Every structure is written in structure tokens, then in C-alpha cells.
């Protein structure tokens, strides 16, 4: 009896977790695959089996190209700003010379993370506002008035204006993850490096980076995956990816196809694309970093 409980024990610990994951994540995921082979909308309960029709439409859909391009822009910019800058900021703040001021900066940088996305988007709609816009006014103030433009109204600037908001919000989040990781680095490693006469920069490369390798993996994963899923910012700031479709993302395209244009089946097919991309990325990254400590 005792033996049975012994082997069952870990599974009992995991039971509630996997129950939740199964019902609310894996089951809908499977359901989504099934849905993508049907044509159905919110109006009628009838579903027609259409085979691969939805996927055939995918190939012709030009909006997907724009959406994917924007998602990739998001990913590249986010990795640079969030992972790269976040790591450097964390390293600076963790350095002894900033010990006294670090708590202040940490709180400030983390602040946007805890502010609701709709507050931030509404705030930036004031910042980008063509009339009262803080950004345009600021540019005029420092003599760069010629750069002022209706940021969210031009296809050339709208995607970047939207992406910038995400950076403003999220750098602090990634930074704090690095700080947590860095504080687990044994101080002796730095002391030893110092004795060897390594400079601060050298210490950063030879001690800090190897020690937070797993966190670099985790944060890169989070940012890229997050970039493939962006929804809120274009949904609020450019009213669903405008002007035209210039700032649309895959998630917004999926949402609009399903809930706005009544093509739930097609939306499910789009959802599969999003899933496939994020899954492939995850596998690539796992290979690259060979991180996980699991045997």
C-alpha cells in the first residue's frame, strides 16, 4: 500500500495542475484543430465540413503577409530592446556602485509593467495624438518639428509606433527577471574574478552571462513568443491594425476573422498558424541553448 502511494505521490501533486491545463489549454487546442476543418459562424449553429478549404484560403490571404511581417518586426525589436537592453540594465543595477540608487531605478523601470495595458494604450493615444500629441510637441520643442507626423495614421510609422509602446512597457519586466537570476549568482565567483584582475566588463561576460544563461533562454522565449501573439496594442491604438491593414498582427487578424467577419473556421486555421510558428520557435530555441536541466 505504502509503495503504491509512493509512486503515485508525484502525480497527486501534479493532478490539479494538469487537470487545469487539460481542460483549459489542451482540450481547446485539440478542439481548435477540429474546428479548422469546418466552416461555421456565430450566427448559425450549423457547421459544414470543408476539409482543407480554410487552409487553402490562407495561401491566398495577403493580409497574412502584412501581419506576419509585423509580428517579425515585433520579435526583432523586442529581443533587442527587452532581452538585450534588459540584461544590460539588470547588470548595471546589480553592480555594487549603484547599490544605493538601484532600488529606485528598479521600481521606476518596472512601473509600466504593472500598469494595465489599456491605461498605457490610452495614454499613448494622447502621446501620439495629432493635435495635442506630446511626442510631436516635444519634437517641436527640441527643434525637430519637421519629424512630427500623425504617428498612428501613416502606414510607415504606425507599426513602429505600436511596437514602441510594447517596448516602453516590457523592458522592465525582462530586466527584473534578469535581476532575480543575477542575485542567485554566488558572490564568490565575482570575488575570484576580481582577484584574477578581471575588469567589470570582463566579469559581465565571463561570470554574469554564463550564470544567467538559462534566464536568457527563458526571456528570449517569452519575448519572441509574445511577439507572435501581440493583440492588445494594435487592437486599441490603431483600432485593429489600421490604417488599412498596415499595423495588423496575426492575433488581430484571427480575432477579426472570427468575431467580426464571422469566419470561425478560418479563424481557427489562422490560430493554428500562430501556434505552429510559436511551437517551431520554441523547438529551435531549445536546440540552440540546450538549456533545460532535465537530463
Amino acid at each position, binding site marked *: 500500500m505504502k509503495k503504491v502511494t509512493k509512486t503515485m505521490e*508525484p*502525480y497527486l*501533486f*501534479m493532478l*490539479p*495542475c*494538469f487537470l*487545469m*491545463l487539460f*481542460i*483549459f*489549454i489542451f*482540450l481547446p487546442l485539440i*478542439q*481548435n484543430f477540429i*474546428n479548422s476543418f469546418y466552416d461555421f459562424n456565430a450566427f448559425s449553429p450549423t457547421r459544414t465540413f470543408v476539409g482543407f478549404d480554410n487552409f487553402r484560403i490562407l495561401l491566398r490571404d495577403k493580409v497574412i503577409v502584412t501581419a506576419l511581417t509585423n509580428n517579425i518586426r515585433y520579435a526583432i525589436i523586442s529581443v533587442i530592446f527587452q532581452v538585450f537592453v534588459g540584461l544590460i*540594465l539588470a547588470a*548595471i*543595477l546589480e553592480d555594487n*556602485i*549603484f547599490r544605493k*540608487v538601484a532600488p529606485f*531605478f*528598479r*521600481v521606476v523601470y518596472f*512601473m*509600466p509593467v*504593472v500598469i*494595465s495595458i*489599456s*491605461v498605457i494604450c*490610452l*495614454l499613448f493615444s*494622447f*502621446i501620439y495624438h495629432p493635435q495635442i500629441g506630446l511626442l510631436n510637441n516635444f519634437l517641436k520643442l527640441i527643434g525637430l518639428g519637421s519629424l512630427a507626423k500623425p504617428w498612428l495614421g501613416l502606414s510607415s510609422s504606425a507599426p513602429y509606433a505600436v511596437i514602441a509602446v510594447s517596448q*516602453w512597457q516590457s523592458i522592465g*519586466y525582462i530586466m*527584473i527577471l534578469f*535581476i*532575480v537570476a543575477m*542575485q542567485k549568482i554566488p558572490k*564568490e565567483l565575482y570575488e575570484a574574478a576580481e582577484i584574477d584582475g578581471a575588469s567589470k566588463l570582463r566579469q559581465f561576460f565571463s561570470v554574469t552571462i554564463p550564470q544567467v544563461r*538559462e534566464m536568457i533562454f527563458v526571456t528570449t522565449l517569452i519575448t519572441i*513568443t509574445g511577439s507572435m*501573439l501581440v*493583440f492588445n496594442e494594435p487592437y*486599441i491604438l490603431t483600432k485593429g491594425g489600421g490604417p488599412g491593414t498596415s499595423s495588423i498582427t*496575426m492575433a488581430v487578424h*484571427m*480575432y477579426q476573422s*472570427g468575431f467580426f467577419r464571422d469566419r*470561425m473556421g478560418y*479563424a*481557427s486555421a489562422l*490560430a493554428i498558424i500562430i*501556434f505552429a510558428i*510559436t511551437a517551431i520557435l*520554441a523547438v529551435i530555441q531549445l536546440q540552440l541553448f540546450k538549456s533545460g*536541466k*532535465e537530463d
Partner: protein
Amino acid sequence: MLKIKNKRSYKNKLGAGGSILFIILVIYAIIILYPLFWMVMSSMKSYGEIYNSVWNLPEKWLFTNYLEAWDKGISNYFINSVIVTVSTITGVLIIGSLCAYALSRYKSRGINIALIACMTGMMVNPQVALIPLYLLLQKLGIHNTRLALILPYIALRLPLSVLLIRSYFLGIPKEIEESARMDGCSSFGIYSRIFMPMSKPILFTTVVLTAFYAWNEFLFAIIFIDSDRLKTIPSGLMNFRDALQTEWGVLLAGMVISALPMIILLMVLQKHLVRGMSEGSIKG
């Protein structure tokens, strides 16, 4: 004043490189703080003043904007957000740490599979689950209740939380566990009396990350909840903006009220959150 003083006393220690770094830190802090400062200032202005004098401080401080915002609906969204956020955190902490414990302390093929399942779970995103989840919630009869947000929130937060907590649990020396077992501690006892207290830092991190998520979540919030009465802040603010039209001051006041509790929570928690980690049970 304080800042200038700090700067001076640092200058000697910092050196040229350090000073440049410090200036970079300050500039970035301004980029973060100024828009927030502007939001607070403008929340006490009238429409005309926001429109005509963007940079100035309010001529007349309209604190009434705050009362109006609170009365016109923010209070309601606020309470909903608190309920949803607290419930989500509780669920994630309990369920997540139990699972992380099993994943970090046991070894078997089943555990490996579970770990992979967990990582896969992290890959599954809300967008993919959106339509089926919506249909599922309706079948369960909890669509348009707070549970329609809480349960999916918990589920979606679990994979990342489990992995974070697990990686922290892995760092707890085996010897502590072994000696506790010799003292007759059960597995659950080790979890609740040793692992959990020793892991406060990562648990705090989990709390903050989950709070941030539940407070911010937008996609589910606009689709799974229809009633204005049950809306959380992110989706409620959209209604609020539509309702107010040109009363920008009141809208901004509503935005400040929405943002404030999390900022306060951050300031309170921050001591525990980061510096507290090195003082936790794991040293070196």
C-alpha cells in the same frame, strides 16, 4: 535635491564610465516617468486646458475629475479586477507550487513527460484557445461570470509559474530535504514546511507576474465578459472612454485610479521582491 546630492557623492566613486551609465539610467527613468507624470497632471485639468496647454500644470486643480471617474464606473471595474486578480494569484500559487515540487523532486519517465507537457502548455497561447475556450465556457455555463476569466487565467499562468518555481526548487540542496526526511517529514511536509518558506522570493515573483497578467489581460476580458457590471479594468476602460467622449480629464483620472494600486503594490513588494532574494534561505 536628493538626486543631485546623490550624484555628487557618487561622482568620485563612479568614474567617467560610471557617470555615463548613471546619466543613461536617469534619461531612461525620465522616459518612463514623464508620461505617467503628465497623465496625473492632466487628470486634474479641464478638456480645454488639456487641449490648449499640453505642458502646463493645471491652472485650477480639478480633483472632482476623480470623483466623477469613480462614480461613472471605475469603482465597479476596479472591484472586479481585484476579485479576479486575487483569485487567480491564489490558484496559481497553490496549484503551481505543488506541481513544481513534484517536477523538481521526483525522477521518472512520467515526470519527464509531465515536464514536457508543461513546456508545451507554455507554448499554447490564449489566441489559439480563444474560440474553443469561448464555446467551452458556454457549455460549462460560466460564460459572463468572473469564473470565465479566473479559470482560464489560472490555467494559462500555470506553465510559466511552474517552470519558474521548479527552477528555484532545483536549487534547494538535497541535504536539507534528506535531513528532514530522516526527521520523519512526509513529502507534503517537506513541500509545505521547507520548500515553500525557502522559496519566498520566487513565490513573490510569481505573485507579481501573475498579478500583472490578471490585471492586464485584455483579450479574454473583452470576449468572455459581456456585462458592464462584471468587466475588469482593461475592458471596462474601453467602455469608459467611449462613454466619456470629450471629458478627457475624467478619462485620465480613471486611468490613474486604475494604475495606482499596482504601482503601490510594487513599491511595497519591491523590497521583498528583489533585494530580499539574497537574504532568503539560499545563499551562494
